[in-house]
């Protein structure tokens, strides 16, 4: 049994000894958080810098089991950190914030947080966070269809044995996976050591991911099933489960990117595009927005060519920002991934259906969450944060069809990141019978033909319709340059009963068409898309949060005296309400009181 035992003495006593990394720029909160976590008997590491946290995580991916991070941090947005961690390390991340606004929580979900806690955090809440670690491990196992382990894993991050930098996996499980029938409980077989109940985690290195994307690209996003991908990748000791799980994340990431791109389209429009279609396109509100994209018109125009990266784009363009490292190999679109490696070696001639290898773990992380959102949309209820639909889920996409099968259209010769002069084209297709043609593929154009695009199929009705022969129509939508819309074709992720697979041929011509934009925003909330509201995904805008407590007037309470707020000419005054207790409201100084009591002590014996 070679599962790494990262120096945790409490390994067998999980959740005791679970290794937590806590990140918060506020020293008060960080101290409190750390103390609370230690009280829960976790093994805690704290840092006030997100960058430091990332560094620690990257140094040794198996050093931690769980990450808790504040949302609002000066050196790096908490959501960005969340993305990074989810993508690169595949660790559960809990977000923490003083702001519990629904939009923010939703953003956490879409970015892949497995939970969202409000400050002040109580110890009771922290006592159960270990569940996220367990849940994730179970999900990984579920991906392959194997039976779940009846008992939770220990706190170790499961990795497949020793994964070296080349992504070669421990041979341990290879034999078993070769001809797996997907029903076998693989965990039970590969590890002779009975204590090794968890699979070692695969580290998706640059190289590995590149192969993955190449395989997916080759198969075509709609035909990319884990088994075939695995065959194409031809990596020793890589299991179908690993691939399946990675694929799932990938798809969600794509989907999420698409929403981001939508938003960027909005910004692009605001930046001066005269094309109203784009303006509408940019809005994620409601399906109606896609009406205007109808038609097969190529919406792209030179105006969209040179948007400077901003917001998400900017983020995508940063070295730190893009996707999975080692993503698409040259010739494929490597969003951000190029930057990660530090050299835009990846030729983005083809836009892989994968978003750049950001350090944004969010790419993968966000993807499952996107599914979650879809399901939320469908079910109209927030399910369990952290529960990601697996590939077996049939409710991944809401029947209302807001999901758009998305494909990322590739572009040639332009590293995704480097596409500052490129415009992100969202290709909409009006393939649907309804007017919900939408942006289909997002492609980068640098004047070059886009090859091998995966299109983002218009969601909504497409889901409901039988597959549209959506190949011909595309309305490219320009987002800010360089932005790659992440989108995951719905079909990839889970077979939906009511959404037949769309056969999107790899489009080797210029603008890919026939794609549906995953309207995550729509999924989230048609009327109030969080993506729509904020132009900068990285920022948490001011929220009009009004605490009802602050405007409470004269309400009686029995326990704690609460100050009643008197609004007087706009000036809020707090007045403590006398509670009938013997404590005078305006104790000038408690020392006075103390001395008063001491005088009493003179006369009487107290206590």
């Amino acid at each position, binding site marked *: 049994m070679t599962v790494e035992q990262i120096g945790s003495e409490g390994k067998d006593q999980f959740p005791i000894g679970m290794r937590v990394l806590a990140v918060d720029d*506020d020293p008060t909160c960080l101290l409190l958080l750390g103390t609370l976590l230690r009280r829960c008997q976790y093994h805690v590491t704290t840092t006030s810098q997100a960058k430091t946290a990332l560094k620690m995580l990257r140094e040794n991916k198996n050093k931690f089991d769980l990450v808790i991070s504040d949302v609002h941090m000066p050196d790096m947005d908490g959501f960005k950190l969340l993305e990074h961690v989810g993508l690169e390390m595949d660790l559960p991340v809990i977000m923490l914030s003083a702001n519990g606004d629904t939009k923010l929580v939703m953003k956490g979900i879409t970015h892949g947080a497995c939970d969202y806690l409000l*400050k002040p955090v109580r110890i009771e809440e922290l006592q159960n966070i270990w569940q996220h670690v367990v849940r994730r491990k179970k999900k990984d196992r579920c991906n392959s269809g194997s039976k779940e382990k009846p008992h939770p894993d220990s706190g170790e991050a499961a990795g497949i044995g020793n994964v070296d930098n080349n992504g070669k996996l421990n041979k341990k499980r290879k034999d078993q996976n070769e001809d797996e029938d997907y029903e076998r409980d693989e965990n039970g077989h590969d590890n002779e050591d009975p204590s090794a109940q968890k699979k070692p985690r695969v580290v998706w290195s640059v190289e590995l991911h590149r192969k993955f994307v190449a395989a997916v690209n080759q198969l075509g996003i709609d035909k990319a099933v884990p088994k075939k991908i695995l065959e194409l990748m031809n990596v020793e000791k890589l299991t179908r489960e690993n691939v399946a799980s990675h694929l799932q994340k990938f798809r969600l990431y794509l989907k999420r990117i698409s929403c981001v791109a939508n938003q960027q389209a909005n910004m692009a429009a605001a930046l001066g595009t005269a094309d109203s279609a784009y303006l509408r396109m940019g809005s994620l509100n409601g399906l109606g927005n896609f009406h205007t994209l109808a038609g097969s018109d190529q919406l792209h125009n030179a105006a969209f060519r040179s948007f400077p990266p901003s917001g998400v784009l900017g983020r995508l363009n940063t070295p730190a920002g893009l996707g999975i490292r080692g993503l698409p190999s040259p010739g494929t679109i490597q969003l951000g991934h190029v930057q990660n490696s530090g050299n835009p070696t990846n030729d983005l001639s083809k836009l892989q259906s994968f978003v750049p290898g950001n350090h944004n773990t969010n790419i993968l992380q966000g993807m499952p969450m996107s599914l979650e959102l879809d399901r939320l949309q469908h079910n109209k209820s927030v399910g369990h944060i952290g529960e990601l639909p697996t590939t077996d889920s049939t409710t991944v996409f809401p029947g209302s069809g807001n999901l758009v099968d998305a494909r990322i259209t590739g572009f040639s010769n332009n590293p995704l990141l480097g596409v500052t002069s490129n415009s992100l084209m969202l290709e909409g297709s009006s393939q649907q019978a309804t007017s919900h043609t939408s942006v289909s593929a997002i492609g980068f154009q640098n004047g070059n033909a886009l090859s091998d695009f995966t299109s983002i199929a218009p969601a909504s009705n497409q889901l409901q319709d039988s597959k549209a022969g959506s190949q011909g129509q595309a309305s490219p939508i320009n987002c800010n340059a360089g932005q790659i819309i992440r989108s995951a074709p719905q079909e990839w992720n889970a077979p939906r009963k009511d959404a037949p697979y769309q056969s999107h041929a790899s489009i080797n011509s210029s603008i890919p068409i026939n794609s549906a934009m995953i309207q995550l925003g729509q999924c989230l909330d048609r009327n109030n898309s969080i993506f729509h509201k904020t132009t900068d995904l990285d920022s948490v805008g001011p929220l009009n949060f009004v*605490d009802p407590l602050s405007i409470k007037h004269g309400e009686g309470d029995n326990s*704690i005296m609460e100050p009643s707020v008197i609004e007087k000419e706009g000036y809020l005054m707090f007045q403590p309400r006398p509670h009938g207790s013997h404590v005078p409201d305006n104790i000038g100084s408690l020392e006075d009181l103390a001395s008063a009591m*001491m005088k009493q002590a003179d006369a009487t014996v107290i206590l």
Partner: protein
Amino acid sequence: MWHGIDMCSLVYSFAFVPCACEHQGIVDDQFTQLRKLEDENSPHFVMEVASLFFEDCEKLINNMAIALEQKQGVDFKQIDECIHQLKGSSSSIGAMRVKNACIAFRSFSDGQNREGCLRCLQQLSHEYSLLKNKLQTLFRLEKQIVAAGGSIPRVH
């Protein structure tokens, strides 16, 4: 005979201060939770957290004051961020009135109302001073108890 400060009184006061504070809404239950975290292994936990908070709060209040003084234009976004942070830390320590002041402050900041913000800042400062005063009294009592050889009653 009365020799200086009577231990009983000290202890009584020490127990009394937080209670009074809570009654006045200066602190809420979170503060109690904080005190519960104090034990033999971390006997000064509340004091440590409070010190951090004081530092933080004063810095933020100063920053906001400076921002509001800018003649060329108030950076409300910065103010908003300060408020947000202060709200987080004040709620973490259980400083309820400070937290509420932040919440009220936010609406003025959102409205980009400079005058309103100035008033809120004033209120915020006031609440903070009040809290600091009380807590420092508490800590002083604690020190006195310890110095006099007593032991600090713990919250359970």
